[in-house]
């Protein structure tokens, strides 16, 4: 459904697609109207100001970048919006930077200091990640209603500490299961207004996707080994190419993984009876990412804003909402009513740590 104003600015309520009584499972595609040339301006201003302020402006830059992408994303005639407070993001970045620094420096002093910092990090990270999920949801909106995330601390420790440890201990055999638990934590506790998201993607589906990707990587590694072995002919230097070829191999698999995982997650998502359909084609995504990569390398990075727009457009426009009822029926959640009356002051624990 297009925005009615694009065609007839003053059209009467008769043409209102938001009116009640729409048939069941109406298809509402997500549209994205961002343009590379336009975003380039925002990107370059952000970049220069970030450099000139030694990184401090990056928090404001992030807000403007997200606002550009959110506001150009339209569903049911209305745009998404992002309300994050740059100061909270700056705080998150300072915390993230300090943690990284502490982690990197501590091992230089002594083994014990290093282990102490690593343990402290493991204890703190799940909570920080949970907080940033909450931050990202709370400051995203559509049609004036905020998203929300109510995931608790227990779940965060399970998904961001227990499962990673299991995964490593089982030599990554539990990796896909970890991914499934993470998505379940992320979406089963997510809200839009008062409506609850739910995801029911089965573990087997994650295993199939990762299994195919790993099979390709293993075959590719064997091929690289055979190729280098035949080329080498006693010259060990040829094997220096191996890491580069391995990175190319991972770049080859990445579009497949992200396409299949996006489809899996969104095709198993529910929001109060509404469903979603995602039809990202791995081949198309592969083409977009490959041409983006060539563009970025060929222009020493100046193509990046265009690349980001191309990727976002394809991934977003591949998603359609299958509406079980009128979109007008969503109402705000409890928390939002409280927040809406008071001022939207960022509380002390508002952080946003991007990973």
């Amino acid at each position, binding site marked *: 459904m297009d925005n009615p104003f694009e065609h007839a600015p*003053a059209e009467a309520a008769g043409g209102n697609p938001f009116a009640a009584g729409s048939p069941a499972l109406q298809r509402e595609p997500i549209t994205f109207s961002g343009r590379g040339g336009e975003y380039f301006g925002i990107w*370059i201003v952000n970049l220069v100001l970030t450099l000139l302020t030694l990184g401090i402006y990056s928090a404001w830059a992030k807000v403007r970048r997200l606002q*550009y992408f959110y506001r150009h994303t339209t569903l049911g005639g209305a745009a998404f919006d992002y309300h994050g407070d740059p100061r909270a993001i700056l705080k998150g970045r300072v915390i993230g930077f300090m943690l990284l620094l502490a982690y990197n420096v501590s091992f230089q*002093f002594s083994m014990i200091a290093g282990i102490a910092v690593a343990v402290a990090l493991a204890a703190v990270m799940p909570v920080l990640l949970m907080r940033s999920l909450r931050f990202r949801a709370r400051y995203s909106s559509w049609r*004036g209603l905020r998203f929300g995330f109510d995931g608790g601390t227990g779940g965060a420790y399970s998904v961001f500490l227990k499962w990673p440890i299991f995964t490593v201990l089982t030599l990554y055999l539990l990796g896909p299961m970890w991914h499934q638990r993470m998505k379940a934590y992320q979406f089963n506790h997510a809200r839009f207004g008062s409506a609850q998201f739910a995801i029911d993607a089965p573990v087997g589906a994650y295993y199939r996707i990762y299994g195919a990707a790993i099979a390709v990587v293993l075959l590719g590694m064997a091929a690289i080994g055979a190729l280098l072995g035949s080329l080498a002919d006693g010259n060990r230097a040829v094997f220096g190419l191996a890491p580069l070829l391995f990175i190319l191999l*991972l770049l080859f698999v990445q579009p497949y993984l992200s396409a299949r995982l996006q489809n899996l997650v969104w095709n198993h998502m529910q929001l109060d009876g509404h469903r979603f359909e995602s039809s990202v084609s791995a081949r198309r995504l592969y083409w977009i990412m490959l041409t983006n990569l060539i563009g970025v390398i060929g222009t020493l990075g100046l193509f990046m804003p265009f690349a980001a727009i191309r990727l976002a457009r394809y991934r977003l426009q591949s998603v359609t909402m299958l509406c079980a009822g009128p979109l007008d029926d969503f*109402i705000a959640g409890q928390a939002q009513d409280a927040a809406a009356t008071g001022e939207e002051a960022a509380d002390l624990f508002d952080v946003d740590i991007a990973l």
Partner: protein
Amino acid sequence: MSTSPSDPVTAVAALYFDGRSARAHIVTLGVTDGVLHVEGDDVSRSEPLGALRVSEPMGDAARLISFADGAHLEVRDHAALAALLAATGHRDAAVVRWAFEPRMVVIMLSALLLSVWLIMQYGLPWAARITAPLVPDSAMTVLSERTLEWLDQALTRPTALPAARQQALREALSSVASIDGQPIVHTLLFRSGGQLGANAFALPDGTLIVTDELVALAGADAPVLAVLTHELGHVQQRHGVRMLLQGSATALFMAWYLGDISSLLAGAPAALVQAGYSRDMEREADDFAVKLLRARGQSAGLLAGMLEKLAAAHGEGAASRSGPMGWLSSHPDTAERITRLRSTEFAAD
């Protein structure tokens, strides 16, 4: 400017959302006497302009006018809204306007290239010089040990130099290695250079490595010592750590700059950045070497002579083949340095 703020302006079409439900109300906006009026679809609302916030323009994207109570308007009728905003005297922040003015975008692009160049040329070396003394000795030891392990595994072989000759060179270096009465902590190691040929390196913790080939090329002890004093200069001024800090900062910047696109790509440039000492560092190390040589009553010519021999041994054109750590590849301006060392500046007193 024919419209004064008190005139009603052309109605602007918009969607109104009350912040409590997702229902879209189709409305029209107008401004009179500094008050915004919203009329339509079950909505009739007036609000002083001072209590509203307008989102910045972002091309075709809807502009949002937010009320203090959480309600907002979504406007896509850009021309009409622009007229309305102009009439109310609204002006977007400079940073916002820049992004959509081609002239400013070009200026920003030039500013970006200029600032990247300035940072690489002056900013990073300066910051590395300031922070290098703060790097703890233990970190430099770990770093040096790893580098030595890598060298021994990949490039060098055990030395074939007689123990007596090694001992003589060690003692000679110890007697030279002091500045202002303070001895300079160092360890001298000998290796067979393999494909590195005649070469000498300094590791950040004061470990100096000299190849058998270089000792053979020098013939006597004095020229070997001249090269080693130069290497001591790198140690004393923490050049290795400074290059490492600069490399890490560049890698961090690249990771952030390319982070949008692919985190896999971000790691690659780090490897490309590290390319030996800078020209200024070579000069500093030369100056340091000359200072030590003078203190022993020797001339800068010793180092210059040794440089010439090394250049000849490796062949100037083949410099890059000596590898990333090699004497010649990290000393790109050998001819210039030889001239400088032989110039009046350094002529024997």
